[in-house]
């Protein structure tokens, strides 16, 4: 397996030697061998949604039996394109050719029939079904009207063994980890005899070790002659796994590249058009006074091990404390516990000198706790409410939006306008519904709202998840500035580069416990991944 110098995504790889760059930037390049028809060819695909053109003049040529990466930043139109290819919607213009023949898909069923399968970024699995049921759904083997489970089990086991997926057909999906779920998704596609696989951001939810496993699976697929379309914005991964690369920017293809001759930097510039933002490690601003102390915090579950198990940590003024971990290891519960959204089984929470263990969420917020939730639609916004009401959310008891027991509508609108100006929230006005904003603008509004209350401690859970690169850079700068002014920040993230780049102290959370404390200035993503999966342990943890 190729292991190139692990240049971090989104970071211009200073150390990597600049390649010749011949491959980059040449429009619709690549060998055009006439003998074998291409597995997939898209010609001039354009897709419009009300008010926006999501894809424009897309050109894509994918050879049979290769892993072809499609890269572009969030919102560049990659997913729209793949949905077009998978028949989830129809293009307004252009042609789709599969194995040299023009096709027109009315639904995913047509695409499946043509041998195309899709592994969605957000898994499309029914949690309460078994692996078997999820895989066969829609093309079930039957015998005498009954679902033939024996036959289904036989075929799934066969697929699982042939491609090394290691599936247990009768396991419930809700009991599976992320990597296993992804392999179920792949099995679903293979079960339908797909020869062309689309993988939409498959590594977004995986830790480095799981990514390695996935790439192993992909190698198996390639050896069996399957074609893989691999969508990503993580350039180092793309360079490791892809045979050829197509770059998409602002809804259109801007070039193809050969991963062997193109550097990450060249790809990145092609992708974004300008230099990328990156979290920079700067001089420490950590002061003495602690703003948040957790002492042996434990959150109990009705059954099984506690999701948060005796977690102790301290955040000081001007310090960013990062929590790394594979999702589902108690980070979400820890965040909820600090916010007072989840009852504690044991332990204390100190904010400054106050013991806030028994305080309500509202009291905690009033005492100076700010919150950027991991899922802004679930916890951060009222989507069907205007922006000015979203400005009030979480600050219902504090000026400027509130006067006594009453809402001050005018002040709320004015202050929303200020936030929109200062934090670059792009929207027509404070009366716009929040749902109409892009993910990045919603997130900037939340960040602006939380910062405006000048919290002592900011709890930021995945603050840049699902936002475009521009907003990501802006949010990172805001967090850095706040830290410099003395705010303490507890940062939970799945983005290892974000964690390493922003944190002053880094804890690793595994099965509800803090298992390691690392120095972000010296740790690599691989080491971090090792601790996160439990493959590595350390004796030097605080």
């Amino acid at each position: 397996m190729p292991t190139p110098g692990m240049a971090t995504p989104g970071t211009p790889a200073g150390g990597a030697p600049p390649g010749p760059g011949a491959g980059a930037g040449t429009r619709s390049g690549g060998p055009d061998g006439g003998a074998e028809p291409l597995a997939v060819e898209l010609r001039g695909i354009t897709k419009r949604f009300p008010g926006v053109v999501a894809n424009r003049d897309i050109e894509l040529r994918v050879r049979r039996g290769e892993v072809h990466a499609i890269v572009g930043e969030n919102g560049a139109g990659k997913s729209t394109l793949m949905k077009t290819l998978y028949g989830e919607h129809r293009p307004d213009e252009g042609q789709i050719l599969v194995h040299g023949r023009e096709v027109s898909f009315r639904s995913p069923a047509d695409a499946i029939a043509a041998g195309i399968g899709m592994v969605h970024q957000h898994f499309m699995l029914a949690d309460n079904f078994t692996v078997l049921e999820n895989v066969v759904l829609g093309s079930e083997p039957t015998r005498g009207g009954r679902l033939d489970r024996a036959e289904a089990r036989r075929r799934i086991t066969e697929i699982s063994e042939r491609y090394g997926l290691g599936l247990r057909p009768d396991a419930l999906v809700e009991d599976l980890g992320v990597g296993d779920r992804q392999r179920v998704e792949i099995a679903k596609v293979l079960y339908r005899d797909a020869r062309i696989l689309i993988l939409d951001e498959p590594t977004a939810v995986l830790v480095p070790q799981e990514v390695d496993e996935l790439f192993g699976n992909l190698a198996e697929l390639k050896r069996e002659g399957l074609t893989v379309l691999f969508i990503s914005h993580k350039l180092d991964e793309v360079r490791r796994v892809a045979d050829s690369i197509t770059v998409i920017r602002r809804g259109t293809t801007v070039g193809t590249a050969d991963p062997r001759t193109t550097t990450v930097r060249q790809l990145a510039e092609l992708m974004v058009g300008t230099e990328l933002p990156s979290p920079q490690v700067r001089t420490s601003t950590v002061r003495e006074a602690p703003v948040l102390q957790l002492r042996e915090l434990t959150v109990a579950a009705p059954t099984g091990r506690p999701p948060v198990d005796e977690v102790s940590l301290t955040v000081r003024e001007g310090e960013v404390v990062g929590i790394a971990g594979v999702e589902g290891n108690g980070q979400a519960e820890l965040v909820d516990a600090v916010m007072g959204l989840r009852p504690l089984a044991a332990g204390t929470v100190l904010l400054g000198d106050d013991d806030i263990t028994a305080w309500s969420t509202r009291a905690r917020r009033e005492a100076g706790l700010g919150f950027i939730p991991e899922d802004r639609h679930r916890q951060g916004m009222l989507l069907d409410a205007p922006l000015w009401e979203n400005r009030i959310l979480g600050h219902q008891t504090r000026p400027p939006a509130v006067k006594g027991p009453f809402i001050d509508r005018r002040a709320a609108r004015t202050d929303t306008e200020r936030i929109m100006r200062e934090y670059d929230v792009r929207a027509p006005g404070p009366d716009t519904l929040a749902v109409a904003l892009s993910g990045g603008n919603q997130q900037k509004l939340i960040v602006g709202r939380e910062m405006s209350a000048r919290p002592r401690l900011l709890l930021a859970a995945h603050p840049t998840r699902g936002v475009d690169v521009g907003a990501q850079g802006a949010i990172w700068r805001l967090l850095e500035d706040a830290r410099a002014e003395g705010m303490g920040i507890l940062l939970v993230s799945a983005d290892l580069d974000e964690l390493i780049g922003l944190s002053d102290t880094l804890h690793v959370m595994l099965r509800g416990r803090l298992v390691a404390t690392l120095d972000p200035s010296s740790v690599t993503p691989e080491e971090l991944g090792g601790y996160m999966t439990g493959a590595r342990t350390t004796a030097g943890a605080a």
Partner: protein
Amino acid sequence: MSTVTTPPGTGTPPSRGPLTDLLTGGGRARRLTWLLLGIVLLFSVVRVISGQEALTGSSTIAAALLLAVPIGLAALGGLFAERAGVVNIGLDGMMVLGTWGAGFAGYQWGWGAAVVGGLVFGAVGGLLHALATVTFGVDHVVSGVAINILAGGVVRFLSELLYTDNPAGGGVTQSPPVQGNPPTFSVPVVSSGPDLLGSLESRHWFLVSDLAGILRGLTSGVGLLTLIAVLLVPATYLLLWRTAFGLRLRSCGENPAAADSLGVPVYRLKYIAVVVSGALAGLGGVFLVFIAGIYREGQVNGRGFIGLAALIFGNWRPGGLASGAALFGFTDALQLRSRSAVVALFLLVALLLAAIAVVQAVRGRLVPAGIAAVVAAASLIGFLTVDELPPGLVSFTPHLTTLLVLSLASQRLRMPKANGLVYRRGEH
């Protein structure tokens, strides 16, 4: 802090003693048998102490079966809809439509037509609900409530139009009598003719007579429709859990987007499910018409809602909802047959809660144990001091039971994950 983390032991649960293993081990069949036996024993004890023979009498059980069937049919209807992800509060209205359809077809063309009429009218109600929720994306509960309001108006309107001045009889609130009833069966020898169970039952022996009464109630004079309704429960299980169609239908209730992405026709399946749901509720209505021999307004009396509660009580499973329907049918039969027998239920509740209190206390949960003990004592006092409840208070026995059972059981239930969520294809 130590960083050596041991993987959590997730093996088989440790043995909790031989008695617990005997009672709860050995798979579902054994557990179920023990449970049933325990219930009969409990009732037997209560019957002997209270002297209320109606408690396990064959006539009460027969009535319970009769009353459980419409509730069970409504619950089965709910199962179809909710397994496909559509909450169906409109079951009650669909049942009302079913009663009217049965009455209308039944007085003209006999009982076979009544069945068809009820099915069709119920299905039309289901179709309306499907149209509102699936096609127009209306909130499921809102649409269901609207259908309940509408159904009441429609049947009144139709009756007013067709039954007033009708030479066959009937009026604004009722139809002319239905022609003929479906045949009934009794198991020979044991329940008819020599009637062995009947003679056993009349001895009032502890446990034996109770079992005999229950069996006789279940085997004598069973209507054709009852038989069909009972058979529908395993049939539904086979259809929904053992066929490809069932898997697809249930996938619409668990993750419709995933189903859609695999080419499963989500909208069509939801339509089918909700229409079947309405038809089954309508069939429940037919059953009520057969009991009364006539369509009468207000006949349904909220049984659709109780069916929904039975569905929830049964954790969205056919077997579970059948036991829920049986429970509500039984309490309904009891309150209709004997107001003094309802008082015996106090004793039953007292015994049950006392047992719960002991179990909780042994586990060290003192607060729940205390609450259970206090309520148990109150029930006991109620049993000892009250002879007969006034009719107004007895009338809601099944509803109160529903409420109590739900408040005790509902936290361990798991509904289909996408139940009640409006699914719109490709909505961003």
